């Protein structure tokens, strides 16, 4: 088994791909019986220190419907200078530049270690990256100040050649002109009126006709930059100006009377930002960065009225169909998101407020365009500041960890078809022979657009085995999948990354143990979770849970070893052993449970869940818990209430939160001040250790987690208590009668109960 683990890990490191099954059932029927679909998690831009890009164009299969890229799996006839496409079996001649190839002189893309390869291609003019700040001014003075500082700081982080623009909004929306000197100019729009892109461009004076009238025909191109340059300027030219401009930003001057929310025109502001870029820089890398400190309260996209006495919608309201603005707002933002995505731009949402800000309605803006979504309590927190700063983090090679306008093309060998993808992407509606009719996630296409992605952006891609049972696959042949990702690198180069993988086929009837052994339960858990979350977006929560349960039961029935109707005889092989536990925690996770979460929070969590890589996703599903004590080195412990002991410090990482929890005794010691006494220096170290580890996580994660330092009995301890498996509750506390662990006041079932039920159901002959 270790071999499979290694294989999986190796594959992940090299290709950024993890399949739920690493040996594929060879027929449709078998595949459906596997319960967990054949699928993979793909991290298209996985950072590869050892992968220098090649500076030429990839060689494509000449069949128009195929166009697969030459890869190590292709059969090559060195003498005839021909290669056979491993997807469509088309025989293609090499291009002239490949005249010199031979077995010993192979181009990189034919070498096995280059199953993933990156090409740099020269196509079209390079346009600088664009950053368009869309800033809410209906903030508290303190917040606005902090935000202004963050924005000013960010100017120094941008690539010098990048274009920046600024839109501010409150009751009105202002598009600031950056080119002028002296008087600062801005174009103002009413916050209640939605405008078409054409209108916006007309009003901003960006319309083509007007321009061409003023200039000679031959000067068309030179004239181009000046138009938009009024609103988007290279950072190096105007960073002083912009710094001043940001410095002078005032809070929205319109009076807000008692009992009202400020009027905030987020919907229109976004619409204008989108329209502006749409008209000036379609299909170039651009980030619209929305900073908002509250819900949109007027105009299209309003989420709540300005009366404070009507609270912003809750899950309860939504269930009761009481959220009167939700549908309209969602539609507005969806339209915007689709337009943005069509233009290859992305929208980031940085929402900092104590109350909800309408992320539920706006989520698609970030989800469909690959933008970031950050939620905080205030702009004046390190959570926001550092998160925002991290957007501009640079990778190991000094390049920004962001890429734009990616176009992911998936090709499969004949036995497979593509069912869909789940992730921060939109469909490009590329129908083809390898597109399945059954959709999982965003389906019906073999190509997706990911407007913005970073090295950790991960898509779940689902396949369907279409090979019929009666048409056995020749022994030894392998199924292949090729992922072709074309994108704009942060250096503005066009690049193409091609990953080609292959897996063995196996007959599930005869070789089930192979398939079983090659099961990647982590990937499977995440893939199933994504499916579940995807469904939860559109379906009722309980339905999704029921579906998940059924899938789990079926899986256990399929792969468990048991005697009928004898729960105690139930066993799962090692490759499946953790899966039920993942499912248990997934069921309790905020991705599927909305209780205790606002709609905004749910949207926020789901947003991140749908884009993070496998490791992070697993942390989200099942938080990690470390224990620090004098009994030994820090160790991971069960995420269970029994792990909460008085003489331990616990460090929990839920991805969104880092919780450091001091056990009762430790807390008392700390209060007594032992850590300050030289003789108890070890105690001090003990206290410090989790902090250091926590900091380490904080430093690297995006978005920065909420950092919680609490202790036994502290109010913030709820973050920990709500996550651990409630093995001890007020119901069974005395039954167990032990001192170990802390009781959790909940009626939720514990893992133990869950497992018992699972076993019972799995072995039941009734199902």
């Amino acid at each position, binding site marked *: 088994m270790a071999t499979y683990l290694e294989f999986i890990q190796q594959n992940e490191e090299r290709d950024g791909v993890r399949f739920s099954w690493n040996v594929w059932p060879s027929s449709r029927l078998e595949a459906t019986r596997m319960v967990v679909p054949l699928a993979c998690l793909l991290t298209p831009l996985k950072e590869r220190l050892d992968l220098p890009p090649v500076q030429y164009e990839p060689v494509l299969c000449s069949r128009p419907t195929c166009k697969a890229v030459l890869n190590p799996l292709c059969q090559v006839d060195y003498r005839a200078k021909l290669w056979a496409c491993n997807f469509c079996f088309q025989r293609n001649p090499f291009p002239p530049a490949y005249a010199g190839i031979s077995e010993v002189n192979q181009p990189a893309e034919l070498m096995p270690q280059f199953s993933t390869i990156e090409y740099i291609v020269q196509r079209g003019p390079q346009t600088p990256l664009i950053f368009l700040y869309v800033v809410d001014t209906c903030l508290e003075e303190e917040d606005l100040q902090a935000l202004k500082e963050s924005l000013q700081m960010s100017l120094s982080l941008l690539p010098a050649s990048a274009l920046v623009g600024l839109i501010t909004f409150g009751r*009105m929306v*202002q598009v600031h*002109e950056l080119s*002028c000197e*002296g*008087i*600062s*100019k*801005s*174009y*103002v*729009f*009413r916050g209640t*009126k939605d*405008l078409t892109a054409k209108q916006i461009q*007309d*009003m*901003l*004076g960006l319309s083509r006709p007007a321009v061409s009238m*003023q200039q000679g025909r031959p000067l068309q191109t030179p004239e181009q930059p000046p138009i938009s340059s009024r609103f988007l300027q290279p950072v190096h030219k105007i960073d002083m100006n912009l710094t001043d401009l940001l410095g*002078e930003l*005032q809070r929205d*001057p*319109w*009076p807000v009377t008692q009992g009202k929310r400020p009027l905030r025109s987020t919907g229109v502001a976004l619409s204008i930002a989108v329209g502006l870029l749409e008209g000036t820089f379609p299909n170039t890398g651009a980030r619209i960065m929305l900073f908002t400190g509250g819900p949109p309260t007027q105009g299209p996209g309003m989420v709540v009225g300005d009366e404070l006495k009507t609270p912003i919608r809750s899950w309860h309201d939504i269930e009761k169909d009481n959220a009167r603005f939700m549908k309209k707002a969602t539609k507005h933002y969806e339209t915007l998101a689709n337009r943005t995505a069509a233009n290859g731009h992305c929208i980031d949402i940085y929402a900092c407020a104590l109350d909800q800000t309408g992320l539920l309605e706006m989520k698609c803006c970030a989800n469909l365009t690959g933008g970031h979504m950050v939620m905080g309590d205030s702009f004046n927190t390190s959570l926001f500041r550092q998160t925002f700063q991290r957007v501009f983090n640079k990778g190991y090679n000094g390049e920004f960890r962001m890429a734009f306008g990616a176009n992911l093309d998936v090709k499969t060998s004949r036995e497979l078809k593509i069912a869909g993808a789940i992730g921060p992407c939109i469909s490009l509606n590329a129908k083809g022979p390898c597109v399945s009719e059954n959709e999982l996630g965003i389906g019906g296409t073999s190509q997706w657009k990911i407007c913005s992605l970073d090295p950790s952006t991960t898509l779940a891609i689902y396949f369907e085995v279409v090979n019929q049972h009666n048409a056995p696959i020749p022994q030894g042949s392998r199924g292949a999948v090729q992922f072709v990702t074309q994108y704009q690198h942060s250096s503005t180069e066009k690049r193409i990354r091609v990953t080609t993988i292959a897996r063995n086929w196996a007959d599930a009837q005869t070789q089930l143990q192979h398939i079983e052994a090659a099961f990647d339960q982590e990937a499977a858990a995440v893939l199933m979770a994504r499916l579940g979350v995807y469904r939860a977006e559109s379906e009722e929560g309980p339905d999704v849970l029921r579906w998940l349960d059924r899938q789990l039961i079926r899986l256990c029935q399929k792969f468990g070893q048991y005697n009928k109707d004898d729960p105690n005889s139930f066993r799962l092989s090692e490759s499946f052993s953790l899966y039920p536990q993942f499912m248990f925690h997934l069921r309790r996770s905020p991705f599927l449970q909305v209780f205790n979460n606002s709609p905004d929070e749910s949207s926020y969590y789901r947003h991140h869940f749908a884009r993070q890589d496998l490791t992070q996703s697993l942390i989200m599903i099942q938080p990690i818990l470390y224990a620090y004590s004098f009994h030994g080195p820090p160790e991971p412990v069960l995420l269970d209430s029994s792990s909460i002991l008085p003489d331990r410090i616990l460090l929990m990482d839920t991805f969104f939160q880092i919780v450091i929890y001091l056990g009762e005794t430790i807390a008392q010691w700390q209060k007594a001040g032992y850590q300050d006494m030289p003789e108890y220096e070890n105690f001090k170290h003990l206290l410090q250790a989790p902090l250091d580890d926590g900091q380490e996580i904080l430093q690297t994660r995006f978005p920065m987690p909420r950092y919680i330092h609490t202790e036994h009995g502290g109010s913030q301890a709820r973050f920990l208590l709500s996550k651990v498996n409630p093995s001890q509750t007020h119901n069974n506390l005395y039954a167990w009668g032990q001192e170990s662990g802390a009781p959790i006041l909940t009626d939720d079932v514990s893992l133990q109960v869950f497992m018992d039920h699972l076993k019972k159901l799995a072995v039941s002959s009734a199902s």
Partner: protein
Amino acid sequence: MSVNQQAHTGPPYGQPQPGYQGYQQPAYGGQSLPGVPRSQYGAYNGPMPEYQQPVPPQGYFPSLGFPSKGSPVSLNSDSSSLAPNFIGSLRAPPTSGAPPPASGASHPSGHLAYSQFEHGDVQNGIPASAAPMQRPPASQPFLPGSGSTPVSQPSAFQQYGPPPASVQQLSNHMAGMTIGTATASAPPPAGLGYGPPTSVPPVSGSFSPPGSGLYTPYSATQGPPPTSVPQGLPVAQPPFPGQTVSTQRLPTQVPGFAPPPPSTGVGPSSYPPTTGAPRPPAMPGPPLPGQTLAGPPSSQPNHVTSPPPPAALAGLHPGPPMSGLHGPPPPTHPPQPGYQMQQNGSFGQVRGPQPNYGGAYPGTPNYGSPPGPPPPPKRLDPDSIPSPIQVIEDDRSNRGSEPFVTGARGQVPPLVTTNFLVKDQGNASPRYIRCTSYNIPCTSDMAKQSQVPLAAVIKPLATLPPEETLPYLVDHGESGPVRCNRCKAYMCPFMQFIEGGRRFQCCFCSCVTEVPPHYFQHLDHTGKRVDFYDRPELSLGSYEFLATVDYCKNNKFPSPPAFIFMIDVSYNAVKSGLVRLICEELKSLLDYLPREGNMEESAIRVGFVTYNKVLHFYNVKSSLAQPQMMVVSDVADMFVPLLDGFLVNVNESRTVITSLLDQIPEMFADTRETETVFAPVIQAGLEALKAAECAGKLFIFHTSLPIAEAPGKLKNRDDRKLINTDKEKTLFQPQTSFYNNLAKDCVAQGCCVDLFLFPNQYLDVATLGVVPYQTGGSIYKYAYFQLETDQDRFLNDLRRDVQKEVGFDAVMRVRTSTGIRATDFFGAFYMSNTTDVEMAGLDCDKTITVEFKHDDKLSEDSGALLQCALLYTSCAGQRRLRIHNLSLNCCTQLADLYRNCETDTLINYLAKYAYRGVLSSPVKTVRDALINQCAQILACYRKNCASPSSAGQLILPECMKLLPVYLNCVLKSDVLQPGPEVTTDDRAYIRQLVTSMDVAETNVFFYPRLLPLTKADVDSDSLPAAIRNSEERLSKGDIYLLENGLNIFVWVGVSVQQGLIQNLFGVSSFGQISNTLSALPVLENPFSKKVRSIVDMLQGQRSRYMKLIIVKQEDKLEMLFKHFLVEDKSLSGGASYVDFLCHMHKEIRQLLS
């Protein structure tokens, strides 16, 4: 009086001569010819010729004289019966036909003529005028004749010229002359006739030609009058001559004459010669030509037959004898004296000139000659008909010296042209309210019968001279002003306190109201409150109350108002330098925002917007280092992009504002945007004020027709072809109702709009003006704006407009005694119901004319009361009520009504009424209605008030003797009768302008002030005496100034002395004078200083800075200038005063018959 004055003027005569010469040639030549060709009056021309035939004036003249005798008598009676004047009523000896009178007249005429001659000018003049009437029969042939004559005439003329002395007189003479000459256009006869006038027969011969030459043109102009005549000609002819003769000549002349001598004593002696000399020439001239042309035979006979000519001649020759002669006439006409009295009233003017004439003229010889010629004159002598100048002068000297105390009920105030002080003793000053009549008919039947409109012209915030005190501010505390319970009238001096002061009875509705405890006061033995003199509301006609919160919008005290400056920055505005100019000016102007009384700084906040196709708002918050511009391109749905920082206190944000104003011209220096929007600009201002929850004023500087895609977009719909069609009215109507709705919104918010227009082409003032007009704002228009020439005018207007006292968010209601009520309102405002006049802004120049109608009877005892209450927000944001009270008499006799009318106010009303009429009716209908109404007014007077007299007499009430001349001016104004050079925009502009004018403004607008600058006394502060608006009065050796409230013309005659030109213009010759000057050069010499001070003084009197135009005689621009010589026939077809008078007379007669 008049006589005296005239005598005074006499001396100046000497100078005139030169002027005379110059005048004759140029003026005449120019005018007359053009006049002839064009014309609605063409018909008139026809008649003219005929006229001339009768011309035989000479013969006729005598006849005229004859009738005159008769007429005087009758006149006397008339006059005696009524104060009214007697214009020269035209008697009808006519019935008998021209011939008879002529023959008959000849005899008496001798005497009469003589006597007349003594008066000389007068008679001549008169006859002349009369002559035209008769002449009509003569005919076209006349013209040719005139053409020929000119040549010879010049010489004669010159000779003639010398005699006349003073300019004024000269001008008068001129008039007379012209008339005469015109008629005389026929050379031969003229020569003869003329001879006499020139002084010596021989001279006359030569002289006549010139006269005729000059005349010819004139005749042409006169032509028109005949038109009216012509119709009647066959039948009417007889009457006409008769009329003219009897009424005008005789009465006027005689009276005029007679009086002078007696009154002045000395005057008479001098008169004969002088007067005789000047006029005769003129008069005779005309007749002669006429004769020649028309029917020499016919005329001659008259001539021949008429002994008078010879007699006259004889008489003339002997200068001294003249005096002797003079003497006789009076005796002969005993009645005359009495007559004169009456005439004085009406005819004073006429006389005036005459005496002067006489005085000035040395020429007995002239005199002699005149007789000959005089007979020919058939026209009405312009000098014999009521002269506005005379009336104004009389009023000035009669009433200008003593303060006008407003205590008594129904007092007629002095004319607006008179400087007088007002002492408020219970009635509002005439500066606030003037009425058409101060005696209101008790019943509606009476009112209908008289047709005299009952109207008040109210200027609630009028500026007072420094000597008069502003209305006191009264604070009645929290309960607010004390008011009648029923009609809500405010406490005023006419309220009756009863029951020991515990209650008061409303003077308007008679309702009894409790006196609130805090207001209680005991009464003294006369029933007056003890605190009568302590309380302005009990003792004064005008005062203010401090309003309580109940009087405020939304029950909230208002915030201080705001001024928003909205500047067009499209290509035209930038290129012309306008934008830079405005910005520069605003920098300093902002220090002079209106402030309340003694406040240190103005409470008014300011904001700035620039615009072309889009709008740019500016954030000038004091905390900013630099202003911020905010562009709003969504013109379809205007809104205000910012609140805080848009409207700011000037002092706090000064550096930012200055920086902004410095940068605006730079920012748009390279603009290529030519399209503009307009409605969104107003909307923006409106929204800004809404957002700031205050009232205010928008100053919009706009250059072009708003054709950019936006609400309120307009198209060019100017179409001159519509003029004189039924669709002409559409030119005055707005293109779209959009602006009406916008105006309504503006008024609701108290957003007043002042519009400064700088068009280079049609921009549809009728539509753009809707909002300014309905919000109580002003429109200023500078067509073809050029920095060099128009900048002063614009800047002065702007300064004044920004600085002037203004109230906001105003509502005015006029309450009246039971029996009448306010039914109609004219002015710049909006009305949402039938009683409340709402104005977003009301400044000190805005006037509202209110018409009253009876809804019940009034009683003579209690009279009629008006109370005008204006609720407004002061410039400091204080809510106030200004109350004006006025008590009027009521009458049961029509005569009382006519005795207490004020023509200037009447004209103000009529003009506004007519100008509103053009919105809904064809212009012709409006004009006819005006004429008809006035004819009815006058006919009613004639029928009911004047003593019975021949129908041929035109008898005018004393108070309304100027009605015809002023009415004619209204009829000829650009709105009602546009000339070819008047644009549609001009008409719409003037229409709206007039609608807000007060009486003084309409007065000078319709009858411009014409001042002979060369007559100005450089050592005194006074203005030279004005002269009548007729080309005849101009001398080519003089410089004149004409102002009408919009323009100042400086007219320079061709033969002005070089010295004067040098002194005034700093150039050495006439030819070098630039007519593009927009101001007189500043030269250090008395004349220049004097003239400039006159100009400055005039500018100071008007609410708008007038455009100064230098007009050189015989220059292209002279056409423009002549347009304002309103007593002459206008190029666009307007009748001359004389002709119109005849026409009116005819109308009246028709009504009477």
